[in-house]
């Protein structure tokens, strides 16, 4: 088995180590409540990171996802408040809000994707631009404050975040489904194979009759829809959106992808690795909060070390293969 290398198992080993460490440091760590808490917090970044895995694998990048989440949340809240008098409080209102969120996500991803594939502008530049645009728009619409969902609508919508079946909350379930579908798509469908081929060498892909632009466009659209999905599950948590919603989500998502072993330059994607990466980042946060060993203020520093370490391990692998 060629997959049993240090860099493949590294993230998994780190995750197990963190779980053991957490259990050792705090008795509550393995309690159902804490595990649910960690997984639910991972779910939003996780769904986005799964989408990001495809974007990065095909040689792209999307810096706008955090701002996009804020923008989608804002649009969704405005739409639901506006539809409230006609639809009333109930399932139709929530479904309509969800449709708006998915639609706005799709359009935002489409805008990114079209600018990148049709206008031929570099992904970094395009999404740096839209990152500013989305966040600024939401701040402007909220007039620098907070957009809040109608109180009763919020009460009705809350179970989408807090509820679930078999004791597992909805965000965790949806994240699990997204992760499994993402892994299947990357490993076993043409779309995934094409993403890897394009990231590996887009000219070879083009000469092999792969519709390069269409595949790239699809990665951005899929990511936009996933950001919409994450937002649907995130809004009922607080019931509001502001200029600081989803701040730095893009960097957390990219970090999770890289920790998971996906190559930043594209060509090699690993969705389950991304999931592990997301869990590692949340666990570090969680353990620092539970244990008094290290100040939680050092959270960012520890995450930074993990990211750099992950890339060093990747490099060790590629130079060993090059020989």
């Amino acid at each position, binding site marked *: 088995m060629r997959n049993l290398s240090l860099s493949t198992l590294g993230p998994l080993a780190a995750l197990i180590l963190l779980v053991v460490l957490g259990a050792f440091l705090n008795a509550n760590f393995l309690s159902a409540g804490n595990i649910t808490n960690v997984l639910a917090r991972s779910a939003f970044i996780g769904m986005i990171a799964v989408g990001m895995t495809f974007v990065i694998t095909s040689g792209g990048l999307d810096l706008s996802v955090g701002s996009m989440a804020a923008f989608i949340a804002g649009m969704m809240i405005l739409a639901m408040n506006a539809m409230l008098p006609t639809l009333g409080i109930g399932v139709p209102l929530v479904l309509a809000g969800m449709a708006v969120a998915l639609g706005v996500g799709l359009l935002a991803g489409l805008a990114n994707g079209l600018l990148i594939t049709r206008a031929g502008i570099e992904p970094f530049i395009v999404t740096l631009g839209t990152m500013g645009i989305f966040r600024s728009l939401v701040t402007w619409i909220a007039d620098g404050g907070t957009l809040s969902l109608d109180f009763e609508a919020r009460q009705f919508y809350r179970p989408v975040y807090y509820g679930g079946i078999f004791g597992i909350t909805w965000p965790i379930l949806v994240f699990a489904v997204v992760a499994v579908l993402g892994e299947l798509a990357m490993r076993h469908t043409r779309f995934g*194979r094409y993403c*890897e081929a394009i990231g*590996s060498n887009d000219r*070879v892909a*083009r000469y092999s009759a792969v519709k390069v632009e269409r595949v790239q466009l699809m990665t951005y659209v899929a990511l936009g829809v996933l950001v919409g999905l994450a937002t649907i599950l995130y809004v009922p948590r607080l019931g509001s959106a502001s200029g600081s919603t989803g701040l730095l989500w893009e960097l957390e998502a990219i970090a999770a992808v890289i920790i998971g072993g996906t190559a930043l330059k594209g*060509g090699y994607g690993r969705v389950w690795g991304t999931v592990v990466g997301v869990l590692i980042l949340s666990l570090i946060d969680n353990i620092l909060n539970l244990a008094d060993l290290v100040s939680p203020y050092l959270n960012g520093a520890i995450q930074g070390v993990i990211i750099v370490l992950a890339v060093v391990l990747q490099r060790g692998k590629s130079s060993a293969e090059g020989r």
Partner: protein
Amino acid sequence: MTPVLALQDVHKSFGPIEVLHGIDFALRSGEVHALIGENGAGKSTIMKILGGFLTPTSGQVLLDGQPAPYRSGAEAEAAGVVVIHQEFNLAPDLTVAQNVFLGREPGRFLLDHRAMRRETQALLDQLDCRVSPDARIRDLAVSDRQMVEIAKALGRKARVLIMDEPSAVLTHREVEVLFRQIDRLRASGVALLYTSHRLDEVRHLADRITVLRDGAVVRQALRGELTEDGMATAMVGRDLKDIFPPRRDSFGPVVLEVQGFSVPPVVQDVSFTLRRGEVLGISGLVGSGRTELAEGLVGLRTHRGSLRREGQAITLHSTADAAAHGLAYLTEDRKELGLLLDKSLRENLTLSTLGRFGRLMISRPAEETALTRAIEDFDIRAPRRDMAVGNLSGGNQQKLLLAKTMLPDPQIVIIDEPTRGIDIGTKSQIYHFIDRLARDGLSVIVISSDMPEILGLSDRVLVMRQGRVAGELQGDAITETAVVRLVMGTTEEATADA
């Protein structure tokens, strides 16, 4: 006279595998020494050892009779031993002058741009190369890049110049320029080591020939002692009478009719027909529009003009359209356009035909079966099935690319430079594959800069010059002189000795 650079009983092992078994061999000033052998015979390893990139496991490198003092490529260059690699060592975004002076820029604190440009121009003039010192490498043709590499080596005052297949990417005219340069360098006392798969060149150029086989020297000869056949036999270790398959004699009806075909801005108004079971050779200089024509024919480039497939007019907007009409194209640039070097054989083989391997999910077993067949059909020799194709030899990469191109079962195959940078044994295999395709009723277009290949393989030859068809030759009219005359566009007298 002491050799400038010599190897003494050099062994080299990579891990447990010994690839060089006691090489003795010497380069002398003012001599052109050709090192020939099949892919994998150990040529590259020897060149890397000479150039300081590898150290021998045992044995010695001697410079002027003393153990060589260098331990890296840079130190070797400083000692006057310069290697020109097959994959050029140029920074694509820098200008020609910046590349020529890379690492030894003149000027104290600020760069002396004027001097760099002036001296670069002088070097390029010496090489009869019309590239501007201010041109960026990425905008240059491959052949011009090579000239820049040579200029760079000359600028470094090389005493020993090691060239890895310098002529593989050059056109006729450029090869002549290169040979003149080699003559000049030889006369000025430089020791030259040279590898090539073109044995006619070796015979013309080399004062001394060393033949390698399986990591050992099997033959050393002076100029005139070995014929091309003799070299090939020594390299392969067996007789190679039938490098080319016998010519085919029966053809079917016309399967492709190309009329007034243009691929702006290069190809203009090209017309020709292609019959079933036929091999049509397309010759011409690099830049004459051969590749652009092929890429137009398979929908990779926008084009004008009419195409008729078995009498039916067709239009092609994409490679997918071309594939639907049974057209396939094998690119000349297998490393940049043909194969994903960091992916496995399986992923490369099925990339352009993934739709056949399952509707929603790709069937891995079906892919593996296809790979097993391809490995058998095209005699692909891979140590491991799941290895990255970048680690395969050039010949096996080319066979895999051929398998990939043939996977959609095309009826018309355009093969651009079928054997570039491939050893003679594999070359012959590929010629026989092409012959088999034609005998199975396919139509093959072979684009090649290799004259013997065009002459030995084609039933008909189409010569292109400056984007147009310069002429067509058939049967006994296909001679080297006739083709060269059309390629160069010269009169009979001027090419009498070509």
